[in-house]
């Protein structure tokens, strides 16, 4: 059997004796939109932070494209093609929307000191500019491209956050509640864009509390509860799963 596109094996994370993730495993195939759900404190954001290289797990392994990405620094993991968006908007103060995308698009392959002496040549610069324009258009951000992101309304900031991550040209994108706080029509537009990204071959791992969105976008959903794997399956299976219902609704509902 070929290596899965993205795989987390037996991941355990402890913070000061509290087990945030307990032997969590997850395997995602290329081009999939995988839903990752669970009640608050299930460990979804911790899992994202661990994949992104911000948290060191006690045990376990993380493979992307057949290679381990565990122990790499966060920017190297981005360089390998794994990007993430944040749960809360985190615009860079003083940077325009276009500059947000350029920060992600400017590669650092030649290193920091290399950047001091080597400038991207004209064709490279033109290519980066064009890519940023295309991304702005895809996200519908072109009318506000030269405004400061921090001064935009919430929904547009949310899109800028998505654009910042997409600009790094990821092959796997971790989305942490991208629909949180969006209006219904914005949510629908987001769903369409995520589908379009899937159509371009991007693989998505989606943490989301908006159940209709998850059920609509994902063919497989993984459920975490209290830092442990609880269930995995199609939206129908997950909706009917007794333990998932118990975890979400509590004992009284039974």
């Amino acid at each position: 059997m070929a290596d899965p596109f993205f795989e987390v094996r037996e991941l355990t994370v402890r913070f000061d004796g509290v087990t945030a993730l307990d032997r969590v495993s997850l395997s995602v195939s290329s081009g999939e939109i995988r839903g990752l759900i669970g009640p608050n404190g299930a460990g979804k954001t911790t899992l994202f932070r661990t994949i992104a290289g911000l948290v060191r797990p006690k045990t376990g392994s993380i493979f992307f494209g057949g290679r381990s990405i565990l122990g790499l620094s966060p920017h190297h993991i981005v360089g390998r093609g794994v990007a993430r968006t944040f749960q809360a908007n985190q615009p860079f103060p003083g940077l325009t929307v276009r500059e947000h995308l350029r920060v992600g698009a400017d590669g650092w392959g030649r290193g920091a000191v290399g950047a001091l002496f080597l400038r991207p040549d004209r064709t490279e610069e033109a290519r980066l500019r064009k890519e940023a324009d295309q991304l702005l258009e895809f996200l519908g951000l072109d009318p506000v491209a030269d405004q400061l992101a921090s001064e935009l309304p919430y929904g547009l900031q949310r899109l800028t956050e998505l654009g910042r991550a997409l600009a790094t040209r990821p092959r796997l994108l971790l989305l942490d509640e991208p629909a949180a706080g969006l209006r219904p029509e914005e949510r629908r537009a987001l769903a369409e864009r995520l589908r379009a990204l899937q159509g371009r071959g991007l693989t998505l791992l989606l943490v989301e509390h908006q159940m209709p969105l998850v059920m609509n976008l994902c063919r497989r959903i993984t459920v975490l509860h209290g830092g442990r794997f609880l269930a995995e399956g199609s939206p129908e299976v997950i909706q009917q799963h007794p333990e998932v219902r118990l975890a979400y609704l509590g004992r009284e509902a039974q």
Partner: protein
Amino acid sequence: MKRIFGVAAALVFILVLPLVIRDRYILHLLTMSGIAAFLSIGITLLLGVAGQVSLGQAGFYAVGAYASALLTTRLGWPFWLALPAAGTAAAGAALTLGPVFHLRGHFLAVATVAFAEIVRLVLLNWSNVTNGPRGIVGIPPPQFGSWVLDSVSTYYYLVLTLLCGALWIGVGLRRGRLGRAWRALGGNPEAAEASGVPVMKLKALAFGLAAFAAGLAGSLYAHLVGFVSPHTFTFEESVRILAMAVLGGLGSFSGGVGGAVALTLLPELLRAFEQYRLLILSALILVILIFFPRGLAGLWEGRGRNDG
């Protein structure tokens, strides 16, 4: 267009100054202002662009001054080699701060204070190399073949030429992708890292460049005055360097130069007021910052972004 005209006019004014001003002392002060400008544009890059506070620039200034002084007096190096070596030594010293670069904001600022204090104590106590509190005397002026640059006005033009180069590099760096990444990591390091920016390396690079500029300033100072001692490189000097960039308008290179000139000339011009000197100077800085929150740069750049 108006702006190019303004820059050209300022440049002509600066170029003819030594022809008009015959007073050697004032020319010396103007040259010192140019040297201070190196320190201040380093801070402009470090704090104004990359958002990192340093209260230890006097330490890098000292490393540059002593490196140049020792290389020329002890090893007989020419000034032209000692100058870049001084910058490199200061940048190298900045990189020894590597282990504390993960600290943020005030914590990092305190670490830089400690660094500068260590430098000062080493200079005071490592007597057989640094000559301790008595300092190093007899530092030669720069020399081109048989032409010794020992007049203040030639030195003025030397500093001015180098300063123009430094400003050109600074403005270019801020405009490019390094500038963009620095502004991003200064505002939000975690999101910058998530955008693929090597935050620690770029922080180190910003510190290294600011230290390099301070090292050049140290060398230029040593060869202008001919004498260095640890008493020049105090915590107050670090504060003065930071104040120059803040007074100038953080993030603006022309403002940084303006701040450097102001905080070099004003204390001397206010000497007549004796014990009220510091009081008047501090009040003046406060007034400027209250009425022009964007500092001196706000005076000539008008509203909008700092981009001079």
